């Protein structure tokens, strides 16, 4: 667990607003040195960590988790050093007012989103202002703000990571870097177990806005793709179809988009070996990169393994490290299984 926590910290502490996923680079270099042969960044922006095959004839397997997270971008610098901004990806506007943010300008700066106090609110309080009406308070003068924060500067939730009881952690960007942590852990287990096939870990760019993973998949043309993303965990009052709660283990997605044979194989493998898991039905859309990878090039059989998460797209996403460990174990075991024989 200590290793998972350390990885979660190093991957989520920097800037990874969609299109600006540079914050974890030094962490990725360490990961490359530990488990992979090369680290490249392809033109559309995805990172590819490649571990070449130690033995020919085994299937080539691509693992994908997206590196980016939702965030903001500065559109205008106002009088008094306030910033207008727009959203990048699906921001939850209910939690923006008074939120701490990090501004990745010419210098890294902190700011806070302006909130109208209850005393001063007029009109219908149940109506949220559109994101483009909110402002970030920088504490700078307009002149200084213009110098340090050009229009187009990305802004993210301020980094924090707190440990809750029961192996649970709370922070920002776990969508989807907590899945990257699980995949890296899976790769480590495979290598320690003497696995010899090619493993390509894609930490993809821009999932929250455009699913740019397709260019990385096109370059790799793997035999199989295993996508890991987060899913909304059950909380009291959830839709009755949403069953996976924190601590229930990884969720395997059954849909018409992902590969049925491979998914069935994964479910059977999990059952036969009593790996903790749940199964969910996402009939025609998974809302993840697993929607797009199957149709790249000549087609790529793809499965989706999700990690349950609470408070998605906020700065207080909650996950269970037990689920992360279980997802890693399941994925590593399954790769060992399908890696034995030639691709389907």
């Amino acid at each position: 667990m200590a290793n998972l926590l350390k990885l979660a910290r190093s991957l989520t502490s920097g800037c990874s607003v969609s299109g600006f996923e540079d914050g974890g680079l030094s962490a990725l270099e360490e990961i490359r040195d530990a488990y992979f042969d090369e680290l490249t960044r392809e033109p559309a922006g995805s990172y590819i960590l490649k571990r070449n095959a130690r033995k020919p004839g085994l299937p080539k397997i691509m693992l994908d988790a997206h590196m980016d997270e939702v965030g903001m971008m500065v559109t205008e610098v106002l009088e008094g050093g306030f910033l207008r901004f727009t959203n990048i990806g699906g921001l939850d506007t209910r939690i923006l007012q008074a939120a701490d943010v990090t501004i990745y300008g010419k210098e890294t700066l902190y700011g806070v989103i302006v909130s109208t106090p209850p005393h001063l609110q007029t009109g219908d309080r149940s109506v949220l202002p559109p994101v483009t009406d909110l402002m970030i308070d920088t504490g700078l003068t307009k002149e200084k703000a213009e110098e340090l924060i050009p229009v187009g500067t990305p802004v993210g939730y301020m980094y924090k990571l707190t440990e809750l009881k029961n192996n649970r952690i709370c922070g920002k960007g776990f969508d989807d870097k907590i899945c990257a942590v699980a995949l890296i852990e899976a790769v480590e287990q495979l290598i320690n177990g003497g696995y010899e096939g090619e493993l390509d870990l894609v930490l993809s760019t821009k999932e929250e806005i455009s699913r740019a993973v397709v260019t990385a998949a096109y370059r790799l043309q793997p035999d199989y793709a295993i996508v890991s993303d987060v899913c909304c965990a059950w909380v009291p009052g959830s839709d009755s179809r949403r069953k996976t709660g924190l601590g229930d283990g990884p969720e395997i997605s059954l849909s018409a988009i992902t590969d049925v044979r491979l998914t069935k194989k994964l479910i059977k493998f999990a059952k036969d070996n009593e790996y903790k898991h749940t199964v969910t039905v996402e009939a025609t859309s998974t809302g993840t990169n697993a929607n797009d990878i199957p149709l790249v090039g000549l087609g790529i059989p793809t499965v989706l393994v999700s990690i349950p998460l609470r408070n998605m797209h906020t700065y207080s996403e909650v996950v269970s490290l037990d689920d992360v460990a279980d997802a890693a174990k399941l994925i590593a075991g399954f790769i060992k299984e399908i890696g034995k024989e030639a691709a389907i």
Partner: protein
Amino acid sequence: MINELKKLMKIQGVSSREDKVAAYIEEAVKPYVDEIKRDPLGNLICLKKGTSKKAKKIMLCAHMDEIGFMVNCIQDNGIVRVSRVGGINYIAYSNSRVVFENGAVGVLVPEGKTELKDYNGDKFYVDLGVKTKAEAERRVKLGEMCSVESGIVKLYGTKYAGRPFDDRIGCYVMIEIAKKLGKCKNDVYFVFSVQEEVGCRGSHAASYNVLPDIGIAFDVTPSGDVVNPSTNFSVKLGDGAAIKIKDSSVMCDRALVAAMFEAAKANNIKHQTEVLTYGGTDTSSMQTVAGGSRAGCISIPTRFCHTQNEIVDMKDVEACIDLGVLCCSFDL
């Protein structure tokens, strides 16, 4: 110069019906490029070969098509109903003259008693001035396209109003880049794309065809310097070429954006930053087709996009041309 632009703006080319625009552009760029082809979708792809053996492939892209309408029903009384092709602002186009592919002219009007908030395609029809279905069918056919009357007029100084600046002005910028480019180390593909207004379909196929290292779109972007803009937006007419950071469809490549800023600064080209909170361009397809490319966009600031009076400043257009020429030599 302005006469050529006037000609280009007069030619009709609703999405999928871009042949006449392509024919004009082909003639205009022929002396300045080495190879010209049209792909099955109709994209016009012109290559100017580079001088270097290690040439990179630079794809410049502007779309030839414009928004318009397609006849979907001719009613008994000669009333012609049309579907929109691309993003139509019915309030702006209400009571406009529309011209069909065969030259027939009509007027696009809302049904009487329609309140402004209910303005949508179902409430509009084209009045051809006919009385019967048979008369209407002699003028237009099902599936035939039309668009709001085109053309430009000069306003104050270097500003012009008219349509369709979106995106004939981008095509114009690229034609001028072809003329000015001279010797260049990179292979430069001038791609004039089809069907952008209906979902960037042409540039998708063209990007597969070219497989560029760097892709740069030239398209219009809304200008924020209007009275009470509907959204906060910092681009201004006359402030120069707008270097795109994002729109709803794309986050532009950061190294390419940085190189554009550097080139503009070093050569005293007036420029500004564009962060668009909606909209989409051919940039996104260049970025994500096949193995992907470093993609960006140089936007021409334009007030009142998708109306019959889009306004541009030719000084901005010239800045876009100058910056575009420099981008052809990028090595990223």
